[in-house]
């Protein structure tokens, strides 16, 4: 098992565990997470408000229903390369913006669709009650519909974030940073001599993705409104499908 020896050798190098050296796994992990989180925050800022308003007024159901399917059909690999090309053509800084644009675009559909589905599934009685005690429409959206939709919104954020973590890795092909994908792409460039780096880098990406999944599972558990958590404990399911 030559590749495993190579990987162990690669992992054992002194600067490999540095937080400040680009050759270090911790450094690249932070870069990877930072890029993914930034894209998620921007995508959420772009997708959640319109989805909330549209769902509140029960408009755009078709868009919400098909967004995820459309998103699935768009190859993320192609989107990254296309945006990179366009940036270089228009003489933008190619090391950051193209990848960010591609990532935000990929995270939009699940966030939009889930926010919409979550708000639509809020029980009309709760909304009517809020109106009855004098909430304005804006307050209904922010204080009733959004919190009650939170579990479904978070499920969308989880799907989006995992896709982002996977895509940042691919982004290393055009991005000088590229998070943990940097190791895999650099390893590929070396051919058989890079198998150790490819293997170790691949493992690092996988561990990161599984860890993120775990964190999101915990988040979904704890970030649910208390009233919802109660009703769920009482056996009432709050999640559509």
């Amino acid at each position: 098992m030559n590749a495993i020896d190579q990987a162990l050798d690669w992992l054992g190098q002194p600067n490999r565990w540095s937080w400040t050296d680009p050759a270090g796994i911790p450094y690249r992990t932070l870069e990877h997470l930072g890029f993914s989180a930034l894209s998620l925050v921007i995508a959420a800022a772009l997708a959640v408000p319109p989805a909330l308003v549209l769902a509140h007024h029960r408009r755009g159901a078709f868009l919400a229903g098909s967004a995820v399917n459309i998103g699935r059909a768009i190859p993320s690999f192609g989107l990254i390369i296309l945006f990179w090309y366009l940036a270089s053509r228009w003489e933008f800084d190619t090391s950051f913006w193209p990848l960010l644009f591609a990532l935000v675009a990929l995270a939009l559909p699940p966030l939009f669709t889930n926010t919409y589905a979550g708000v639509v599934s809020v029980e009309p009685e709760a909304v009517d009650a809020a109106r009855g005690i004098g909430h304005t429409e804006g307050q209904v959206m922010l204080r009733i519909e959004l919190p009650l939709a939170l579990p479904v919104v978070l499920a969308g954020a989880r799907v989006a974030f995992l896709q982002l973590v996977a895509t940042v890795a691919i982004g290393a092909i055009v991005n000088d940073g590229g998070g943990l994908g940097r190791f895999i792409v650099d390893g590929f460039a070396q051919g058989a001599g890079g198998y150790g780096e490819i293997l170790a880098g691949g493992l690092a990406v996988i561990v990161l993705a599984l860890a993120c999944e775990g964190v999101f599972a915990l988040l979904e558990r704890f970030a649910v409104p208390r009233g919802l958590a109660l009703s769920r404990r009482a056996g009432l399911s709050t999640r559509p499908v």
Partner: protein
Amino acid sequence: MSEYVLAASDRPLFEWRWVERNADEIVQRLGEHLALTTAALAIGLVVSVALAVLSLRWRWFYAVALGTAGALYVIPSLGAFALLVPFFGLSFTTAVIPLATYTLLILLRNIVTGIQQVPAEVREAAIGMGFTRLRLLLQVELPLALPVVIAGLRVAAVTTIGLVTVTAMLGMGGLGFFIRQGIQTTTPNPTAIIVGIGLSIVLAVLVDALLWLSERALAPWARKAGRA
């Protein structure tokens, strides 16, 4: 990478000439793309049916299989390829294993759900007519589960077609070849990138429509019942 910038600026975004000149290769890459997609879906379907049969017998097995498939589904494609390249090289095998793996979660869940929702009376009637377990599965349960299974297959197919482009990083050809070629030549070629992305989307939409049509043809009762 800055040398690309100057070279890129004088090339139009889309050149029909390029498409015409490369028609043969486009057909070839489409074929490669379809071959990888079909292989991944076929393997995924066979494995999922086997897992589903075991899952229907033992509840604990379903929990374990679904949990494992869920964890595998989370693995980034590039990470999965990286894990396999040192052992299988830049090969079809390396490409197809993760692609097939990603289909398991959705296919397994849909097959089991589909079979579970077969009405008990139907099952009892078949058993009463002397059907063996295998015949019951093949001739009654699976056909009745077909709409749900195909719904899963549609999602799996569309996802796989998009992911196959990533296998271009393994030198696997397919439509990802054009996407990669677009920035790897000394003069970047936007037409190649756009053709790669565009055909991948078109292929996904076509396969999705084809599966939808096949569902309507194979399970016409589902439409009548208004489940579509």
